[in-house]
């Protein structure tokens, strides 16, 4: 079993219905994608279904693991026990100036 902490911000928090949770993944050497597949969302699907398209992270979302933002094709990154996965929609419309 691998445990992973999940922090969901903004849109992804609303998808999941919670902001922080520790989840147990059912097999060792779980990947980030495995964790996302185990997170049911309020629309009856999973977070993976909402955030991933053709195996790649959608461009309007970000997944941060151990302080590093994963690239779209890095969802197969294996998790170490206790690592925190932060999911969020990318904020592009921040003020500039």
């Amino acid at each position, binding site marked *: 079993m691998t445990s992973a*902490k999940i*922090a969901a*911000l*903004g849109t992804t*928090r609303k998808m999941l219905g919670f*902001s*922080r949770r520790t989840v147990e993944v059912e097999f060792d050497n779980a990947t980030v994608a495995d964790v996302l597949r185990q997170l049911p969302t309020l629309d009856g699907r999973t977070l993976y279904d909402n955030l991933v398209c053709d195996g790649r992270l959608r*461009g309007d979302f*970000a997944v*941060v693991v151990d*302080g*590093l*933002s994963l690239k779209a094709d890095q969802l197969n990154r294996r998790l170490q026990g206790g690592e*925190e996965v*932060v999911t*969020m929609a*990318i*904020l*592009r*419309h*921040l*003020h*500039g*100036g």
Partner: protein
Amino acid sequence: MGVAQSVPVESNWIPSTCGMCLHGCGILVQVRDGVALKIEGDPSNPDNLGKLCPKGNAGLSRLYDPTRVLKPMKRTNPQKGPGIDPKWVEISWDEAYGIVAQELGKVRADDPRKLLCAIGDFQRILLWGWPAAFGSPNFFTSLGNYCGGSYHPVNGSVDGSFAAINDYDLCNYWIQIGSGDGFSSHLHLAGSAKRMADARMRGMRVVSLDPRCSIASAKADEWIPALPGTDRAFVLGMAHVLIHELKRYDREFLRDRTNAPYLVKNDGHHLRSADGKAMAWDLKLGAARPWDEVAAGNMALEGTFTVDNASVRTGFQVWTDLLADHTPERMSQVSTVPAGTIRRIAKEFVDAAQIGATIEIQGKTYPFRPAALNYYRGSQSHSNGLFDNLTFKMINMLVGNIDVPGGHLGVPLDHRGFFVHPGEDGMLKPEPHQLHPAPPFKYPPDSTHLMEWFPIGFDAGQLNTETLLDPKKFGLNYEPEAVLLYHSNPLWNLPETDKVEKIMAKMKFVVAIDIQHTESTQWADVFLPAHTFLESYLLNCLEPPAVTGHSLRQPVVEPVGDTRDAYDILTELAERMGFRDDWNDVLNMVCGYTAQPKYLLDSEKRYSVEEFWDQYARSVYGDEKGLDWFKEHGHAVRYRTPEETYMPYGDLRIPFYFEFILRTGEDMRRNFTEVGLKDWPLDNYQPLPFWKNSQVIEDEKAGYEYFAITFKEGLHTFADTMVMPWLSEVSEKDSVHGGVLINSLTARKLGLKTGDRIRLTSPAGSIEGFAQVIEGIHPQVFGVSNTLTRYVVTNDRAKERGTHFNRLLTGSMRYTDSATGGLESTARVRVEWVRA
């Protein structure tokens, strides 16, 4: 909100951070019996070295200004317009919050994009995320764009920095173009002035190019007047001299540290290998090879070659060829600077650069290039600002001085340092957007300032003056109906004031969070009075020229009146409108807590001001340095190390040939074509800069003979400070702020004398003012100090002298850089004597 625990009963000096401009010098505030008596620079803070500019010294007059708004206010006059009395009445905070939450809540429920937000508190960048939490993408101001619209994207594209400054400690020959660095403005004035003075004392020479004999020009060894917006011509002429006439440039730097040797095809793109690598010419093999397969010493910097029967050139050769006709004589015709002066300065510059020299610093050997060109607003806030910025960077590259001792140094956005990410072809990844990720192209656009249409630019707030009055023309499928002002004054800082007034007249509800009334708050329905910097918290870190770290702003006295911290106000509004959880999440993102989940704000919890800044302090400095540590010590500011300052990106090359800009332009052309907007201007997406006339230059053909410029000095911040009597009085004593500056030769020609009322008329509008005849301005230029630009102020004497320069400017795309969104800050004008 409480007062810092260290506030004593007897006189004491409390460490804090100045808030009179965006930079934040360390200060000590003398407090006795709960009254702030004096502000001085904090000598323990290596940023400002104990120095403080006039604005900081005058901070008390903002805290205790009798015209300050001290209670929430509600408008009772439904009529709105310039000069119309809002008939304010005091109300409770609860009533004020209730009105605002109800009105903005309706907007949010309907379509949150219908809220325009104007936030001008530059020190609290974190709070700029509030509109995103609300759901609005709109940026309703062009305040920063006057200076940084093209500047920041180019700094980020060249070396992952946000700004730049020459090396005060080691530079020997400093060319200053359209900037007050070290003299009157830009990065941390007080400390920079000390550093500049020290450099002059050890013999550094300063040459200043400016249409006006600015403070920098007056103190320089040499002032060279040029026409506004033609600084690039002067520098392109210098580049021509270095490359074509003197044939002196830093070949090793260009070959080994930039992509200048990469081969370019006739279509402007790099020649690439089958696996996509940029190719270079191997002089030893006499063939094109992938860049990483050519030994550095064998890579051709110059030359035209044939590959597969097609002609290719190195990127350096492309610019060399482009500059062939940019002779000093031709550039002189543009700028009015004599060709001989261009040649002399070019030679002095390359002589002083000591190409080939090295220096050892703390046991490490670096290239040593003690000559550099520094620039800022006046030289590049133009409709070809991208070309301006690229040119100024590339003249520095020619002498190999980028990010090396003595040279032109990148200044990172904050304590996290340069954005260093490997890009393609062994290069540093360009980071034109640093305040937020670039939004993808979208049609219809989401934002009224069209940020989806400027992938390498910043936020072109001036475009609001076009889009909001004709939304359908730009494809906008909604019309804004409310405005939130947070220490921002779009009526003052947007161009074409008449249009901004029409926009405000369309708004159903306006709320202002501010300290005093402004041109914009007179349109507000509710005024929420905020704390000054002497009553509020902030952990400040912004654009350090030589140092890094945070300095604490903390309350030094009890708040005056019934005022509140802007963080508290925004949080309460979010709470009442039901999106405080989203607000916390936005703060989690902009504070960088996503990379440090330990510090993530709980979306369910409301954090006090103290709790918020305590969390932020601990996230940066560890749990042992929370808010209490900063209250005691004041700051954690230190000098940047040589490793942080000099070439922090290691062996990664920086761009000399900007292919990614060309590619971005091609992508945008495809995007616009697909949605049927074939005429959208894209002509500035070029890989190299050259001279082409801007619209301002062309306006001469329509009979606009003269140029008009505005300028700022160390006394004032964005003219926001003109309402402060101490500073206003000082300005009055300086004739440069006494009226519209006009050269004596021009005055004689037009029959004008000091005190005559004159009217300047541009293609956008007219202003009137009193002529001030001086010698220190280019004969074809009229100058308007920013201290004259306020027209609704509580200071009657300032009002009498006032005019409003921005009425001469326009926010249209014809006067906007098509690649960066940078706006044109110069106007062409006709001049008339207004006879009584």
